[in-house]
């Protein structure tokens, strides 16, 4: 991966290495078997998004013949070539991993059944179910020799059937209602247009066939998303299943004369998801986003996954009709769409094959009886998912019902499906409070849900702002304005993660509750700025992107560099998801050269090359991929002993620092600071789930000294949360509540 004198890693290849680290989790017996299946599914899901967004974007750049290299010196075309090479290896690794997992699952009674192994009774049962549930849902599409690109939706498993051409037999075929023949005669494909300029028509001979008398016809059977992928078969012990594509292939005779079927293979198309709304002066962003979502369904194909068993004839036909570059066709051994294996990983009845439960720990005394009184006493901090997210929900609920609260201002980026927080905002509006919600409609792949929530909130009387023109609002903040006896007081929840109760059970994130006067004032001004009420004003404690977050970070790094240059101790520790910003990386290199000890815990992309003499020998980069998704952004600067701790919604990437609305919050409370420093340290002590980035771009397990105890940061964090819970519970138990004589007894 590394080239001579390379100063930065390529971002895309670095991301693929991250996905490899996730895949490695599926391949290690450190995790229970079904959890490994889940990791495999995650890699597939990740890869889908990577193709939709990153590859899609790179293709747009490459097609525009833009040859500007990225910070690693690679052009878009070169990156695409490297990606294809690396992804091909990954497909192979995924297939091998699935084979291995399937074998191991079999030993525990979880068995995939092949059609030939079915009993006749099972076959009949399946046929009945197929007829009742599937036949009407698969929507066969007879494909002519070309197809209008927009009619095949992406990210959907399909079976392509090649049939011998016989008009008589086709007419006698048992085609279900909805059968349709598609022809692209009137709509030639983009690729054919581009490559064979002047062609008379899109209707051309495919794979050497004569267009007037084709030898084969193709039919696509799109498996509906409502259909279960895993069909359960009867078994006394364990779990037996058959995959839906096997069932469909088995019962093709329900659609076609069996004598005409030449072959049937599964395939999957990935479309460019890098289709974003061009934000013009339109006032109706909501409508624009809905149209954009439609447009995304018919964007260019960036990847075709095809079962390796497919013939060359079928592959060529598909390449042509789907209009996909042959280099973007991936032949896959075994099942496609491994993301569906989340469902298999979630089957009940195999507790030994799952992780031991780590229930989020309650924080009994966090707020006591009065949320606002508690926060007034001191800042409160939680580390999810080890600590429950309930207090965050409780905070918003309390605000909604409190008669002294006059306003609630909330950012929403990716809310959960059944969000209690959003319901509380609606309650608050109903109670006559002034509620403002910034719902980011442009949150990729959550647009539809956010549109839904935006409409619901508006109907409830909430003042909904659809984000900021040209920027995504990624900051996480809830501001409660309360009228108290001593005057207006603001209570703020600031976080590194989304207001999403579901993901808060899996993602590691920090929640901070404070009523610091200056943070409250900054928060109000920040909200006024992003809601268009005011031009941005000077923020004193909070830092916001794209205003001053980058400057604050650079200044903090600069202070450490100056300290090191003066011979003082200087340290930077950061926990982030991605590091890809050239400016920050260069500053860190400078820090390393000055002698600053830099420790980076970067879960995913890292374009910084650590451990290079004269450049970065004082920088250590680790990555922790484990049971919970590392998501918290925590930064620590030694600052001459006056430790500065920050939490942030922003990664150290150009998009976060320049093209998103983000926040960075100082943590001021001494107890909270110490806890955050402890949390940061746990990860660097991890010798189980942590890997260290090497100068060549590979990641290696952290060296473990003999007899040294195994330290797993996440396990440690869970235990700490339990201890906090127990300590709080015990403290509560020492408050004696006495029984008093009732007034009736007097």
């Amino acid at each position: 991966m590394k080239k001579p004198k390379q100063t930065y890693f390529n971002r895309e290849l670095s991301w693929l290495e991250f996905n490899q680290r996730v895949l490695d989790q599926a391949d290690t017996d450190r995790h229970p078997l079904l959890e490994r299946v889940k990791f495999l599914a995650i890699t597939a899901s990740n890869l889908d998004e990577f193709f939709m967004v990153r590859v899609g974007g790179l293709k747009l750049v490459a097609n525009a013949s833009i040859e500007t290299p990225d910070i690693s010196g690679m052009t878009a075309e070169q990156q695409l070539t490297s990606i294809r090479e690396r992804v091909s290896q990954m497909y192979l690794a995924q297939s091998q991993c699935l084979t291995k997992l399937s074998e191991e699952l079999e030993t525990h009674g979880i068995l995939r059944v092949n059609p030939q192994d079915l009993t006749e009774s099972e076959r009949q049962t399946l046929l009945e179910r197929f007829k009742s549930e599937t036949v009407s849902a698969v929507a066969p599409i007879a494909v002519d020799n070309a197809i209008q690109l927009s009619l095949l939706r992406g990210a959907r498993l399909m079976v392509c059937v090649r049939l011998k051409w016989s008009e008589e037999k086709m007419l006698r075929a048992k085609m279900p209602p909805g059968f349709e023949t598609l022809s692209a005669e009137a709509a030639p494909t983009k690729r054919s247009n581009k490559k064979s300029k002047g062609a008379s028509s899109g209707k051309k001979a495919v794979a050497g066939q004569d267009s007037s008398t084709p030898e084969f016809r193709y039919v696509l059977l799109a498996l509906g998303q409502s259909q279960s992928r895993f069909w359960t078969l009867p078994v006394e012990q364990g779990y037996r299943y058959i995959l839906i594509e096997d069932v469909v292939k088995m019962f093709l005779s329900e659609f076609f004369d069996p004598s005409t079927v030449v072959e049937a293979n599964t395939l999957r198309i990935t479309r460019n998801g890098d289709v974003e709304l061009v934000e013009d002066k339109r006032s109706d962003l909501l409508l624009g986003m809905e149209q954009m979502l439609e447009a995304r369904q018919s964007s260019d194909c960036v990847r075709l996954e095809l079962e390796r068993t497919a013939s060359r004839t079928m592959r060529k036909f598909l390449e042509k009709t789907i209009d996909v570059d042959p280099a973007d066709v991936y032949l896959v051994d075994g099942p496609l769409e491994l993301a569906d294996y989340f469902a298999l990983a979630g089957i009940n009845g195999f507790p030994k094959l799952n992780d031991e439960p780590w229930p989020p720990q309650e924080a009994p005394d966090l707020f006591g009886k009065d949320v606002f009184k508690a926060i007034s006493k001191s800042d409160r901090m939680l580390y999810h998912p080890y600590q429950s997210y309930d207090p965050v929900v409780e905070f918003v609920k309390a605000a909604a019902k409190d008669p002294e609260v006059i306003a609630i201002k909330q950012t929403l980026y990716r809310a959960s499906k059944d969000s209690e927080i959003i319901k509380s905002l609606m309650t608050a509006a109903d109670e006559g409070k002034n509620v403002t919600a910034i719902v980011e409609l442009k949150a990729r792949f959550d647009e539809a849900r956010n549109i839904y929530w935006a409409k619901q909130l508006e109907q409830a009387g909430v003042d909904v702002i659809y984000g900021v023109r040209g920027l995504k609002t990624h900051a996480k903040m809830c501001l409660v304005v309360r009228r108290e006896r001593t005057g207006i007081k603001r209570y703020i929840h600031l976080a590194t993660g989304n207001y999403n109760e579901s993901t808060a059970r899996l993602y590691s994130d920090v929640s901070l509750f404070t009523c610091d006067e200056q943070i409250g004032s900054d928060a109000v001004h920040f909200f006024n700025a992003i809601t268009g009420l005011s031009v941005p004003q000077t923020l004193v404690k909070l830092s916001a992107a794209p205003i001053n977050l980058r400057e604050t970070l650079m200044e903090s790094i600069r202070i450490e560099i100056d300290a090191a240059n003066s011979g003082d101790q200087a340290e930077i520790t950061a926990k982030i998801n991605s590091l890809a910003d050239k400016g920050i990386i260069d500053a860190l290199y400078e820090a390393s050269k000055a002698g600053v000890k830099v420790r980076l815990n970067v879960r995913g992309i890292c374009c910084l090359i650590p451990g290079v003499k004269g450049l970065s020998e004082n920088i250590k980069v680790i990555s922790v991929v484990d049971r919970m998704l590392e998501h918290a952004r925590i930064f620590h600067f030694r600052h001459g002993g006056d430790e500065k701790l920050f939490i942030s919604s922003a990664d150290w990437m150009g998009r976060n620092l320049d093209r998103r609305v983000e926040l960075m919050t100082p943590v001021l409370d001494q107890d909270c600071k110490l806890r955050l420093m402890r949390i940061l340290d746990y990860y660097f002590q991890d010798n189980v789930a942590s890997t260290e980035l090497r100068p060549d771009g590979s990641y290696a397990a952290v060296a473990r000294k003999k007899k040294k105890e195994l330290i797993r940061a996440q396990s440690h964090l869970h235990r700490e949360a339990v201890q906090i819970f127990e300590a709080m519970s015990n403290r509560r138990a020492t408050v004696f509540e006495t029984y008093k004589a009732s007034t009736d007894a007097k």
Partner: protein
Amino acid sequence: MLDPMPKKTGESVLPPRMVAVIDIGASSLRMQVAEIHSDTGAIRKIESFSQAVSIGQDSFDDGKINRATIEDCVHVLSIYRQRLDEYRIFDPEQIRVVATSGVREASNRMVFIDRVYIATGFEIEPFDEAELHRVTYLGILPFVEKQSKYFSSTSLVLEVGGGTSELLLLEQADVMFSNTYRLGSLRLRHVMDQFNGPADKALELIKSHIEQTIVDFQFSTKHAKPRHLIAMGSDVRFAASELNQAPVGEELVEIKINALEKLVNKILQQSPDQLAAKYHVSLPDAKTLGPGLLTQLMFAKHLQVKKLLVANSNLRDAMIQEMAQERSWTDSIQNQIVRSAVQLGRKFKFNEEHATHVGRTACWIFDEIQFLHRLPVRYRRILELASLLHEIGNFISDKSKHKHSMYLIRNSDIFGIGSQYQNLIAMVARYYRGAPPSMRHDGYAQLERHDRVAVAKLASMLRVAKAIDAGHHQRINKLNCELRGNRLELTTTDVADLTLEQVELRNAAELFEELFGTELSLETTVN
């Protein structure tokens, strides 16, 4: 930085009073919401807003505010109204809305004011230059107390706004000179934009405008050479935070002239669009940055100071301070105003001893009969100034001298006094003698009812005070006041023979007795 949360001093008697000030400037509409703690008088800023508008651009270019701009302002002010509703700030006494040169210079300013009132309910106060000086001085006062070293000799306060520049020359913190020049950052930007020629020539052109103002200032102040230059305004606050990498706090912040010059040169080389993108400021603010800072720089260079002292004070903060004083002036401000009035009196050769004595006596009467007149305390200030200046009309002629006093006061500059107050002072002075106030009198008839009543009451007290110093010898310094039945008795222990004063009072008290329904007598306890 924020004001700290007021500390608890036992149980607070009343919850804090919430107030808001809206400042309709040349390039922006700004609002400050604050709490005033009634027990301690402490002010706590709650929330501030700023929205860019192009009032000044319209006004300075076309002479009037365009309809689209008016509607933009109405839109912004409607949003501000909603925020005030959120804080439950409804009472007009809690809200002050002032407009500066952008509105003042527009030919359709009344249309603007009416449209804003109809759409938002906000009543825009006329706010003229003299009031601006008073408020600016009020904004400087905290620094006078905290950093007195900068005010021990001569210092110049310079605030460059969008339409005008305001200058206060201070001598040991006393105002020696104040003036407003039609030199504003937005006006200068307009000159640059309108100039059809190379950029360096446009720059030369605005430099010549600034130089001309410096020459005018030199002439007016007889070539004063202040040792310190205290800079105010959003442009220079931006420069200070940019150069010092920290927002301007509660103390004067020093910026070196060399550093400022480099920044100004850098800024002047970039387009407003580039500045807006680079410094995250609004486009209207970006437009004024260069000209505003250049003005400050050229003044600094002219004064040969090595550093600029930047004050984080603005119109809104100072007005909130005034609101905390129940719209009365602080003693420091009143002292500056009285100084200015005395200077005016001297210009017209007034009898300073007599005028001062009458003023003192009038204020004493005001305080003693508060239960009778029930006027807010701010009217005491008016009475004091009217008393000081009541006889300056003598300078013109002995005939109808009270009327001469009236128009001299109306048409002179008194530091810190706006035209509305100035008119009231003039009216009170006009009635120190002669016919009582009448609806047939020009000026009096145009007053609002409550002001007419106040003028009459104040004039009656002035007449009594003047009668008490009828001999112009300031013989009576100690007085006692007592209401006995329907008779208000003034007694003194200073002199035995009060014949002259009693004769004068017989005529002078007529208005007083009619207004308050009491008889008035002056007696002595000296045998």
